[in-house]
């Protein structure tokens, strides 16, 4: 298998789960800036996931508008003023809801796959 093919075997992020990944990362790691969040997702996924790092920014904006995360100004390792994102209480609740939903969905799909025979 060539390298090029290997990269194609990475999956896109399943639709609608980017929010879940971001919220979970913030819960585990505490406040982070955007780059760190993207790296964290990549690291946890190891090489299974193909993520356009930039795509987390529209997602972060949406989550902030929903009130699930909040931002504070901080300074990055490169001495630049950047936004640090952290989970809010509502965000924590939303995370629980999304985890539950996800588990339900996967359980349901799993049952269908098992019931095939």
């Amino acid at each position: 298998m060539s390298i090029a093919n290997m990269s194609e075997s990475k999956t896109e992020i399943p639709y609608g789960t980017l929010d879940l990944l971001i919220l979970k990362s913030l819960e585990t790691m505490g406040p982070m800036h955007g780059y760190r969040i993207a790296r964290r997702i990549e690291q946890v996924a190891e090489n299974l996931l193909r993520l356009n790092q930039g795509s987390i920014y529209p997602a972060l904006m949406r989550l902030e508008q929903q009130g699930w995360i909040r931002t504070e100004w901080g300074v990055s390792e490169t001495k630049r003023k950047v936004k640090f994102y952290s989970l809010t209480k509502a965000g924590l609740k939303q995370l629980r809801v999304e985890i539950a939903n996800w588990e339900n969905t996967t359980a349901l799909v799993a049952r269908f796959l098992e019931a095939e025979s």
Partner: protein
Amino acid sequence: MNLRLALHRLLALVRKRRLERELNNEVLAHLELAEKDLIAAGTSLAEARQAARRNFGGIEQMKEDHRDHRSFPWIEVLLKDLRYGLGGLARDPGFAIVTIGVLALGIGANTAMFSSVDAVLWKPLPFPEPERIVRVWEVPKPGLHNGTSTLTFLDWKRQNTIFEALSVEQATKVALTTGGEPTRLAGNLVSADYFKVFGVQPQIGRAFSPGDDQPGAPPVIVLSHAAWQTRFGGDPGILNRDLVLDGEPNRVIGVLPPGSFDRDVASFWKPLIFAPEQMTRGSHWITTVGRLRSGVSMQQAQAQMNALRASLAKLMAPWKKDWTFGVEPYGQLLVGNRLRQSIYLAFGAVLMVLLIACSNVANLLLAKGAGRRKEMALRAALGATRARLVAQLLTESLVLCVFGGAAGIAVAYLFIRAAVPLLSASLPATADVTLDVRVLAFAAVAAMTVSVLVGLLPSLQISLGKLTQTLNQSGRGSSGSTAVLRRIIVAGEVAVSLVLICGAGLLFKSLVNLQQVDAGVRIENVITMSADLPLAKYPTPDSAAQFYQAAVERIQTVPGIERAAVSQDLPLQGVRGGELMFVRGFTEPLVVRFKRVDPQYFRTLDIGLESGRGIGDRDRAGAPRVIVINHELARHLSKYFHIANPVGQEVRMTLPGYGKNEGSMQTVQIVGIIHNEHTGDLQAPVELVSYIPLAQIPRQDIKIVARTLGDPSAAVSAIREAVRQIDPNLPLADVRTMEEIKQRNLTWAKQPTWVIGAFAAVAALLAALGLYGVLAHAVTQQRREIGIRMALGARSADVLSHILRNALSMVVVGLAIGLAGAFALTRFMKSLLFGVSVLDPLALTVACVSMTLIGLLAAWIPANRAARLDPMSALREG
């Protein structure tokens, strides 16, 4: 979408620039950090930079995504289009002024008209729970209303469970002698419950209390706010002042709040105390108004009135055996059918004017749009969707209409200010014509609708045409489809205008017919006025009769006065009251108009004698009862009662009493027949009228008629002086010439005629403007073609006729459609026409001819311009 999100997104609109900067910063920081990590992992600087960007993905794509989701993109687009639209207007102020002006006129006229329609027909009456206010009648046969008698009214009041309040309402006129010159004041005699019926509390003082309408109660009155302000300067000490009305002091106990009672003719309200002699069931003199208890439906109310009628059956006169009692919503009776029709007609007409105004603006936009096709095509080529372009055009028309609507509201305000004083006499007192919230909402809806109508056509143009082809076309020449569309619009305008002109023509012809109706009385050089003899000063029939005679004799000595007479009612104003006439051998009575006149009346008004004699000086109190009948009644008697020659015949009639006295049934002799006089409306058939000697049955409220040698108005002060010599405290009012009375009688026909006529004129003008616009544009576009034709030998006259034929083709199509429209629509005004068929050939022909002339006139200017074209210069320009 929850509120929080919506708020964030709206905020994002405002903080657009900041958010954009922050996003840029984040992207830069992200890339820096990524590069740093990559370098730390051993990648070269150049490669790190590339890899960081690769891992990030498309930056611009992400930003676009960010922008689309952080806010309401459609609002941003809208704002952009609005800015563009405003910029467009600023670049072309002439176009802006014309279109906004046309729209302002159209929307303004409609808004003003809506405010009157709303006030007269749709708005609830300005009283609390107006649906509970009703009128109660005796009903001789379905559809007719008759007043009731005192005793029946009292039975209604005592034996019902449906009315919270029930009151009589009796118009009266008195002489006010407090403070200088005696003046006549209109008022209402009412029961103590009256203001409870309308749910109105006085602004100061108190309303009537239950004892105020009982015998022996001291005389009290409540004033209208307007009367308090205008006659008594808003004097705060008015309460507890005594006003002398007809010689009696009346204590003012309250003043009403400003509002609909101010538009009523009545200036004061006074409790009506029934006199012992009024306690009968004979005279049906009482008008009743009531308020239903809450929760009582009209059906329940009617059911109880039916039950009451059954229980009172034994007390009713035998000839009234078929009469019933009826309840009707008060609001329903305020607006007559004719007024309703006129108002709907005017509203329909003004909507047509708006339609034409819209077409004109759409036409202008199309012409402009033809010039902008390049721009649109370019934007389409660069990726703008059709929907996006249409949205932009609609936004531009919206900008126009918002300005047009705002200016239209100002125009409506001016229209209302100007028109209400002219129309108020024709509208019910409850109609408050103002710019209220409902009217403003209408203006807003009208502006929105107009903006869609106006923007739609140019948008269709974009949607239907193949835009990309436009880019390939040579720079010159308007596109064919636009030109066709514009011609269709102009034909449509001509059609709608023609409908209006036809309507106006029919109304005008009908008015001319009405003016020519022979009233049966002398109209020229006759002056009239009215007086009310106070019962206190003229307590007996004799005292009143003496006054009439003295007044007539005194007035006739005034130089310049030919004759004078006194009568109960004037021609064309209707006869108040009818009585029953019984012919021997027939049980069914005949209802005839009952008009009291003095011996001079017929001669003063030139009403000729047909046979027998008129009313003479000998027909006074104590002399045998006589009547004179009109030609129509004589005809009726001979046709249905087999009385070939009524003169000398005796009939029995109910004759009313004087003052508060009850009338009685008497035998009277018919002594003469006179020619028909139009006692009521000119368009109405002649009524059956019996003339009674005024001296035998006098009346307190009377009219004085005088025939003059010269200008009748000049005689007024001399007549006043003559009357003053007989009774210095008797005010004369309602001074009018017969000509004025005739014109007033025609108001119902005149107002719609002038209103529709004005709208038709505006419509024709707008249509002409549209026609002119299309032709002028065409001539400009075809300069080169015309130049070539002239160079090849076409004469000026050929060019002129070519353009005029072009115009005529649009007009003719418009006329054809318009005539069809007129046939379909004019029949709705049938009831407003007198002696004119809705298909009157003359009116329709005149309408078509005038529309054609207007069209040719509008075409003349561009045609003439084309005909004078210098072919050489036109060709050189090319």
